[in-house]
């Protein structure tokens, strides 16, 4: 177990400031980059979080309205989950089983390190993609919970790194709602704080290397 004594005094205060959410956006991002590569810093953060948490006794409990849970289920599992026919249900189970076999190891393996997540969504949530990036495997697991490409078109995923002049293509999104996309070596360190965006493109993806169709959805990548 890491103790505070293992860390220098500046880090002890800095991690406390981070836990209180007192760092400004730039400092916070820089700290999260350090945090991602430093287990002892994560242990120190956990000590701070555990230390502060009893202050949360003062947060009064308030029952949320029932629509909150329906909205959460719709975001995670799609709006139609309750209305499957038996036949469709069996088919869906077979598809899920097949997917679990191929992409399960990436999606559900217990990650040791930090995970980066992004909620890539259209303003009106007609297209919603939950993306999870595991820096250890450099793979983005995507879960499209709403929307799809129109006939004869594809959805293309773009990375807009902080301060980058232009988006970089991460590839055409597979048709299946659950899929994985590998991130090229040189982009891996640019993920945290970047924005992921989805554009509408012709079959095969953008012919120019830049988005040519409408940008349908975007979301920033944060440390979970």
């Amino acid at each position, binding site marked *: 177990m890491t103790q505070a004594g293992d860390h220098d005094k500046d880090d002890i205060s800095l991690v406390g400031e981070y836990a209180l959410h007192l760092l400004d956006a730039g400092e916070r991002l820089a700290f999260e980059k350090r945090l991602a590569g430093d287990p002892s810093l994560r242990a120190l953060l*956990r000590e701070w979080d555990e230390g502060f*948490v009893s202050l949360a006794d003062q947060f009064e409990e308030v029952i949320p309205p029932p629509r*909150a849970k329906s*909205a959460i289920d719709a975001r995670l599992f799609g709006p139609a989950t309750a209305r499957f026919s038996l036949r469709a249900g069996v088919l869906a189970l077979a598809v899920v089983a097949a997917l679990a076999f191929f992409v399960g190891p990436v999606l559900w393996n217990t990650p040791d390190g930090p995970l980066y997540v992004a909620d890539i969504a259209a303003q009106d949530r007609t297209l919603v993609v939950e993306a*999870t990036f595991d820096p250890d495997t450099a793979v983005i697991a995507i879960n499209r919970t709403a929307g799809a490409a129109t006939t004869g078109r594809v959805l293309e995923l773009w990375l807009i790194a902080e301060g980058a002049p232009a988006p970089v293509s991460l590839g055409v999104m597979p048709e299946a709602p659950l899929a994985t996309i590998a991130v090229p070596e040189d982009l891996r360190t640019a993920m945290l704080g970047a924005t992921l965006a989805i554009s509408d493109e012709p079959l095969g993806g953008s012919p120019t290397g830049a988005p040519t169709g409408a940008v349908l959805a975007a979301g920033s990548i944060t440390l979970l």
Partner: protein
Amino acid sequence: MATIADIEGMILRTGRGDRAAFSLLYEATSAKLFGVCLRVLNNRAEAEDALQDVYVKVWQKASGYAVNGYSPMTWLITVARNLAIDKLRARKAPAKNIEDAYDLADNGPTPEMAVVQKSERAQIDGCLDELDPTHADAVRGAYLMGDTYQDLADRAGVPINTMRTWLRRSLAKLKGCLSR
């Protein structure tokens, strides 16, 4: 009534993709986490949005919970508080309707919620008592309301750099006390 061990079990099962466990977890903990979002955001609609983000994140991240070493409620509250403060920072003008927010929500706590926090409250309070009262108030303001350094400096009537110097020094002291 859900115990800490129950909640831990629900998180672990959620991490294995168990939707029923996820629903139980929501029932047992959503009033607490909604309370966190409401207190920080002070706006019901935004707090509902934040609550959705919280449980989406909990579902996505539950598989990593077993190895992160957090106690269950600390993990959930930390996720909720961070997301709520992110939302608070993202908006421009603060909402002023905390009274409205609470008036609309006149359902009392249910038994499941009496759960959770029987923690060592005395320790943090005792440690905060060892600090200069102004500094202790600043720590509470930051934790409970998501105050920025600017907010804290304004309230104490000191320059922001002074507040930061005070608070960093007090945090070092506080950590020493909490680790005792």
